[in-house]
């Protein structure tokens, strides 16, 4: 019997390969969508199973390794993120993909993500991590070598760091499955508390933690390892980016949770706490906080839609990291909640960007404007997405952000609190810039015959937009699932209400009163005189007459004052630093080669002599 976990994990890959081999237009899309839908269906079904039993397990031995897979509440939630957003992204790709190459690798990365979420031992975790990286890398490679190389190098750096950490753990613990490692390290911590010698030294723990942090930080886009994300997210099929940013970055987040699961107790024992948060978590949280700010500010200064959202993605993942770093049960739940909402709204955003790019063929703000009239459906979706990302009640973005704020601030983290506040404001800032430059204002004449979204994309966006609204109005739906992770009621309240003791949020109530407020405003509005629709040229420009030929909308350098204010900080760039290092390494390599393999046989003979000398002196 084939286990359902295997079906969940491998269906996308298999369908991807089939779609790639068949390469018949229409058929490949259908197969691929099926490939994304089947795991989702199985996951939804698994929800039933998980109510009666704590987890679903599967294990297999390959190449001397025992691969274990486990579906329990935490992984179910993450897998559902992958399922829903992945499905939507695949639907979107049905409209935007032109060849089967993309299907293969997009679905391969989906398989990778499922594998990561369901893996219950480090080796399968690593393997699927690599599969995911590879799949997404190939998606970028097609569009841009430099971006993909940057992505791949940093990812592989992360992956190798993880491998080293896994290796150290394996060397010390002698096992690779989560359960054993967790128990061993827990016992190790207990040994430490009792004062006996521990299995792993302080330096070991520091090393393992650091390596894992690099590994997961890269994928999550954590500062200062975020530099790949803006390029990689933007230089690929934008429908795929919905998955890339919405789901793949969650693998990094999930990895951070894995740190907690595996090493939490041991690290806590080793390094203690700052205030209420574990010290190691504080590192994550603080880097997350910086990520929010850096990502947000850079997002506001971008001139390319795709880049804006790429940076925005980085910024939003920063929130999640803050939540995870703070490390209380509530904050972790909040972080996961935000992971869900981030996947939903950012997936939606990238599908919107995909639509725009598909229909206009342009990506820069300077070529856009006034599309709201031409693409009303897309704009409606954008509206939902914007409200959600900006954290406007009653959408899901607010519910999760609210939870996160409360969780972080409640743990007495003033500086982090300030950082996340700043982050929410910067969210407004770059969203409005996007809205203004793309949807409003004067429309360049070459966009006059822009069509609205194709149907698969519309369905995909519709799914995500609906979930954005539903999970915002009824946050309890998510909270019940989150509570199952810890097995106790951390977030109380009803389906409409989140109640965490020191704060309450009721999505339904807010919706009702917001509607009431708007109705009141509407009454006043409709009592007034009739309105007349005027064109965009009929605006006040200091009395000057205007025509459509001249651009009235500020499309470039919209936040110039911000740039000026931040001029000092903007000179510091980690991207450049890495590039310099890369160039330096290449030069070194070249010099090295020229010196060593210089083509001179006398020199080569000398090498032999030297080695012989070393052999003699060493005394082997």
């Amino acid at each position: 019997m084939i286990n359902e976990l295997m079906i969940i994990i491998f269906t996308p890959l298999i369908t991807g390969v089939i779609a790639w081999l068949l390469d018949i237009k229409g058929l490949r899309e259908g197969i691929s969508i099926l490939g994304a839908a089947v795991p989702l269906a199985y996951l939804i079904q698994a929800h039933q199973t998980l109510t009666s039993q704590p987890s679903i397990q599967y294990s297999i031995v390959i190449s001397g390794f025992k691969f274990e897979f486990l579906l329990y509440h935490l992984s179910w939630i993450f897998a559902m993120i992958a399922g829903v957003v992945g499905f939507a992204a695949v639907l979107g790709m049905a409209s935007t993909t032109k060849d089967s190459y993309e299907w293969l690798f997009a679905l391969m990365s989906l398989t990778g993500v499922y594998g990561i979420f369901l893996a219950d031992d480090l080796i399968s975790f690593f393997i699927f991590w690599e599969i995911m990286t590879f799949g997404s890398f190939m998606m970028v490679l097609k569009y841009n070598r430099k971006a993909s190389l940057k992505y791949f190098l940093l990812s592989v750096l992360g992956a190798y760091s993880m491998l080293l950490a896994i290796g150290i753990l394996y060397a010390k613990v002698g096992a690779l499955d989560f359960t054993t490692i967790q128990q061993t390290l827990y016992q190790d911590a207990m040994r430490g508390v009792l004062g006996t010698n521990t299995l792993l030294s302080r330096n070991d723990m520091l090393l393992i933690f650091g390596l894992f942090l690099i590994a997961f930080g890269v994928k999550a886009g954590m500062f200062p390892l975020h530099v790949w994300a803006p390029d990689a997210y933007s230089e690929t099929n934008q429908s795929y980016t919905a998955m890339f940013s919405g789901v793949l970055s969650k693998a990094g987040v999930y990895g951070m949770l894995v740190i907690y699961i595996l090493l939490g107790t041991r690290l806590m024992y080793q390094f203690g706490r700052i205030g209420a948060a574990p010290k190691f978590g504080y590192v994550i949280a603080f880097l997350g906080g910086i990520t929010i700010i850096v990502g947000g500010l850079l997002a506001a200064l971008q001139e390319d839609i795709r880049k804006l959202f790429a940076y925005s993605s980085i910024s939003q993942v920063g929130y999640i990291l803050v939540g995870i770093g703070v490390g209380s049960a509530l904050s972790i739940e909040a972080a996961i909640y935000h992971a869900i909402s981030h996947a939903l709204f950012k997936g939606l955003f990238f599908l919107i960007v995909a639509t725009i790019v598909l229909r206009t063929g342009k990506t820069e703000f300077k070529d856009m404007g006034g599309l709201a009239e031409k693409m009303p459906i897309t704009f409606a979706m954008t509206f939902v997405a914007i409200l959600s990302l900006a954290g406007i009640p009653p959408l899901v973005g607010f519910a999760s952000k609210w939870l996160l704020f409360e969780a972080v601030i409640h743990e007495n983290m003033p500086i982090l609190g300030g950082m996340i506040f700043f982050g929410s404001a910067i969210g407004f800032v770059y969203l409005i810039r996007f809205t203004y430059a793309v949807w409003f204002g004067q429309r360049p004449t070459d966009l006059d015959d822009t069509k609205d979204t194709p149907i698969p994309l519309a369905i995909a966006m519709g799914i995500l937009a609906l979930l954005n609204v539903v999970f915002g109005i009824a946050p309890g739906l998510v909270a019940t699932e989150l509570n199952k992770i810890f097995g106790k009621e951390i977030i109380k309240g009803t389906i409409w209400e989140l109640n965490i003791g020191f704060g309450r949020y009721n999505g339904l109530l807010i919706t009702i009163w917001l509607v009431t407020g708007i109705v009141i405003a509407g009454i006043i509005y409709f009592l007034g005189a009739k309105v007349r629709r005027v064109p965009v040229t009929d605006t006040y420009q200091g009395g000057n007459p205007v025509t459509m030929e001249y651009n009235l909308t500020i499309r470039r350098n919209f936040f110039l004052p911000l740039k000026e204010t931040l001029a000092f900080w903007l000179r510091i760039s980690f991207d450049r630093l890495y590039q310099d290092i890369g160039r330096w390494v290449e030069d070194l390599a070249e010099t090295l080669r020229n010196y060593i393999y210089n083509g001179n046989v006398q020199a080569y003979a000398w090498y032999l002599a030297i080695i012989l000398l070393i052999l003699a002196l060493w005394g082997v």
Partner: protein
Amino acid sequence: MSQYASLLIALPLISAFFVPIIKAIGKKVVMPFLVLITAIQMGMATWVFNEVYTTGKPIIIMAGGFRPPVGINLYIGHFAALFVLIIAVASFFMAIFSMKAITVEPKDKYAMLSLLLMLGATGMISTGDIFNLFVFMEITAISAYALTAYNKSGEASEAAMKYIVLGGIGSSFFLVGIALIYGSLGTLNMAQIAQLAGQMNPTVAQAALAMLVFGLGVEAELFPLNAWAPDAYQAAPHPVTAMFSAFVVKAGLYALARILYLTHAVGSWGHILRLLIILGTLTVVIGEFSALRQTNVKRMFAYSSISQVGFIAVGFALGTQAGVSASIFHMVNHAIVKALMFMAVGYVALELGGVTLEDFKGLGKVMPLTAFAITVGAISIIGIPLFNVFWSKIQLILAAMKAGKSGVIALILGASLVEAVYYIRLIHLMWFEEGSRERTRIKENFVFGTIMLLLVALIIIIGVAPNMTWNIVQKASADIYNVAQYIKNVPLLPGVSP
């Protein structure tokens, strides 16, 4: 029955000397003859492989019926059976490839030399006598020198010259090492050396081992004894390069590992392991770095091949069974991948007349199948899951970590990052960049395409389902690692001691 296995040595040897006669029959028959012989060899190797792995017992062939240590014996254990097969298969594929790839006359010399190369490598792997090992090594080396120079270009002669100088120095020291061992133990039989290794005078043992390692280091391309390799790889005819990478260097590595583990009772064993690890790591790092800015793709692959060899050496030098297993696994995978890639590069060179990066631009449109093969090979070498090299790499890394060599692994992984860079550049170049020259699509040779696809399929099959290969490899590694078993397997003449 199992005595027929000696034909593995005899057949290429005899047929090599038949080549002039064949030539007399007809010039055109020479290459088909080569293919035929390698095919027969492959058949035999398959049979031997099957025999060894089904019975689980090594095939011991005593030359002239004299039992060792008096007579020379061949020992075709699990490892040898596996590698004899690989050698035969690689030779067979390359023989087919050389039908088109070898254009320079005299082809009969080529056929002869490549048969001798195969013979030498097979002999190195299957011999049970250390002096015999030296002889086979010399056969391999000398035919390799000649084959390197086969293209008769200045570049080729220079490369061959370098190879001869360095190889010559290496083998002379190897011989000195053997002499020392013989002087100390009075035996040349490997099993007996293993038996008696503990009794050796430590100083002599040290010196002898140093010489042996030094000598084999040249063949096994350890840094900095590998200086000949890039030139030779680049200058040699394409099938020869593939053979170098696929089995010649592997034979050297095998010899290194075999001697190393046979003498593990020697007091200074730990030292030599440490030295080997250092050399292996340096090989990896320097090899990868050298490949980084290479514009000649063949040379780039050569450097890459060198660094992979360093990887294997590190695995052997860990001194644990896990390390040996991983190394052998890596050897198998590397042989497959590099055979594929050198063949593909050679094919590109044949069709397009050059192997610089410029020639590779837009290859995906000109020669899609070849480009695909190179891509799969490159991806595999980078170490992506679902491709074969991943498994051996991760096994090796975990083995090294288990042995407490995290620093070394960190260095090696760092070097692997560099590897990713140049392979990705190549892949992007092939598929997504337009060449400066207008080129039409070339109709690819059906046979070569089939061979390449076969190898690609092998890469992916091992990548997706590595279990079978892994089991084979584990048995092979036990063959090398478990010296006690080895001694027991060889029917030493009782009572004969030095």
